[in-house]
């Protein structure tokens, strides 16, 4: 069942004792390169902001936070700007970007669908409904000790995906990828309908809900980072461990089964890990679109179809991409902020099209 649209690559390199036997592995240089890009993006982003701090000041604050016994002589105000405002925002941006790209890549792997993104099974609609209900029920809640909006969004996202998973059986009592995706569409529409209705009944909160849905990192602090980190680390570890299984899934459920892999269980594990991590980051960042599709596909176009390369590089690339997108979001109209989701699509779409046109590989 060869894809007819695939460009024929006839210049196969032959020779050597075992030609090409290391191809699916991730070379150290790609990894080092991606880490450098991420480090550079983080550094640039922490250096730039509305407060006019010199690079020396910023670096001094950052170095003083390392356990080296160095104390900076920067004022408490400047130190606070760097460490309490810029640094957590960059770290949170990295976590959100890494998670969305990682979850998108994983979904594309287990659903064998290039259009799969982290919101495929209803995370977005569920989180949106949760957030809307929380805002409508308690409009002044942002000043509470614990903000209920992220919690409600997190819960809503998990409920929506769980519902999709339970309902997504076809007539044969099997969960095929198509029936799951269709169930996701149905659950998503249903939740969105309730969300829209709730919103219309509570027009004074419209703006608050709208700004949450568009996504952003303006509320970032170390507490939010601390809330998200455990989910991202644990789920990221699970997904990275599944990287070879995702390659096996490329031959379809039945052949994966005949190779000794229980495809349905792998899909459940991957969906659960992706959903949990996505729900956690969506709860703090709102709905940032596009990252989960664009980053994995860009990586795939560059390094080929193996998830042993795509997953680690998507994590690093997604983090770098979102840090830079957030830098744009908070600087172009400073002091006002452009919604992050607008920036990711505005910057990401043209960039992706350039990569797509220059690539000789099939996505």
């Amino acid at each position, binding site marked *: 069942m060869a894809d007819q649209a695939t460009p024929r690559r006839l210049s196969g390199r032959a020779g050597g004792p075992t030609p090409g036997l290391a191809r699916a592995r991730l070379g150290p240089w790609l990894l080092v390169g991606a880490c450098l890009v991420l480090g550079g993006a983080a550094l640039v982003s922490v250096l730039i902001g509305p407060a006019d701090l010199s690079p020396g000041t910023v670096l001094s604050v950052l170095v003083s936070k390392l356990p080296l016994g160095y104390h900076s002589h920067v004022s408490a105000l400047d130190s606070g700007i760097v460490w309490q405002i810029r640094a957590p925002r960059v770290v949170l941006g990295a976590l959100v970007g890494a998670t969305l790209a990682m979850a998108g890549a994983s979904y594309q792997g287990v659903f064998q669908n290039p259009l799969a993104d982290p919101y495929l099974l209803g995370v977005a609609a569920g989180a949106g409904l949760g957030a809307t209900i929380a805002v409508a029920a308690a409009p002044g809640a942002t000043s509470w000790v614990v903000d209920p909006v992220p919690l409600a969004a997190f819960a809503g996202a998990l409920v929506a995906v769980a519902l999709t998973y339970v309902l997504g059986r076809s007539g044969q009592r099997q969960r095929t990828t198509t029936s799951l995706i269709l169930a996701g569409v149905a659950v998503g529409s249903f939740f969105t309908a309730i969300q829209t209705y709730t919103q219309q009944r509570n027009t004074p909160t419209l703006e608050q809900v709208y700004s949450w849905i568009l996504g952003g990192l303006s509320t970032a602090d170390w507490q939010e980072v601390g809330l998200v980190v455990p989910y991202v680390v644990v789920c990221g570890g699970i997904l990275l461990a599944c990287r070879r299984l995702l390659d096996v899934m*490329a031959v379809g459920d039945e052949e994966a089964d*005949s190779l000794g892999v229980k495809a349905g269980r792998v899909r459940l594990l991957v969906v659960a890990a992706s959903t949990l991590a996505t729900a956690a980051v969506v709860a703090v960042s709102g709905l940032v679109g596009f990252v989960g599709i664009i980053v994995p596909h860009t990586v795939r176009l560059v390094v080929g179809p193996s998830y042993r390369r795509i997953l680690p590089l998507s994590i690093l690339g997604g983090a770098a991409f979102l840090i830079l997108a957030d830098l744009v979001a908070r600087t172009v109209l400073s002091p006002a902020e452009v919604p992050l989701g607008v920036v990711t699509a505005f910057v990401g779409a043209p960039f992706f099209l350039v990569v797509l046109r220059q690539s000789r590989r099939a996505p």
Partner: protein
Amino acid sequence: MRLEIRGVRVAYDGHDVLTGVSLAVPTGGWLGLIGPNGSGKTTLLRAVCGLIRFDGEVRLDGEPADTSRRRQLARRVAYVPQRPVLPAAMTVTDYVLLGRTPYITLFGTESRHDRAVAAGVLARLELDELATRVLGSLSGGEAQRAVLGRALAQEAPLLLLDEPTAALDVGHGQHVLELVDELRAERGLTVVAAMHDLTLAGEFSDRLALLAAGRVIAEGTAREVLRERVLARHYGAELRIIEDGSGGIVVLPRHRPRPAIEGIDADAWRRGPADR
């Protein structure tokens, strides 16, 4: 590996697809499964490698196959479906390495030994030249060799083939079957192959089993099974069976001559200039 199939029964949506099939193949034997479309050949192969639920029993070397232990089963049974999914951008090497999956722990990756096995398979199937090519760029014959390579990398003693030559021309089809036969001799593989081409099936199989409507109609040597009346009844076809004098049996479809239709000149064209 000795394969015994005992009273295997499979039902889809309430109607039976296989109704109590029993067959046996000794170690190193080649059983050809023949039968019309929908007779249950593919279903039987899928049952043997545990991809579908069935009643009855499949025994491998005398022990019941435990289909719940997929990895163990995949080390003993390799299955080549009729239309394998070939990820267009995957290289031949990576694809063959997928055959090592039953030997790799759940979250692990290939060992040096796995890569050595895959390299051996690539060399044996003369796929080294294609090792870095992507599957989407292969011809039908090359792709079929790659799929066979993945199955061989499983190092399973039982090889199940579903229509291995369906997409191939006469030359490439013969080459693939010769290859399977050589590997069977080298590695002592037991082969069960569903085949449409009755002549090829008779030529390459030790014994044939004719399935129709989910049951075994005939089982035996090619000479015993490939009989005009039996095939005509179950295939709904008119066939001629010709023995070629050197032990081969040729199955030919017969074209019934029809009366000429007035006003159509193709009859003269068909007869050729010599007859005009």
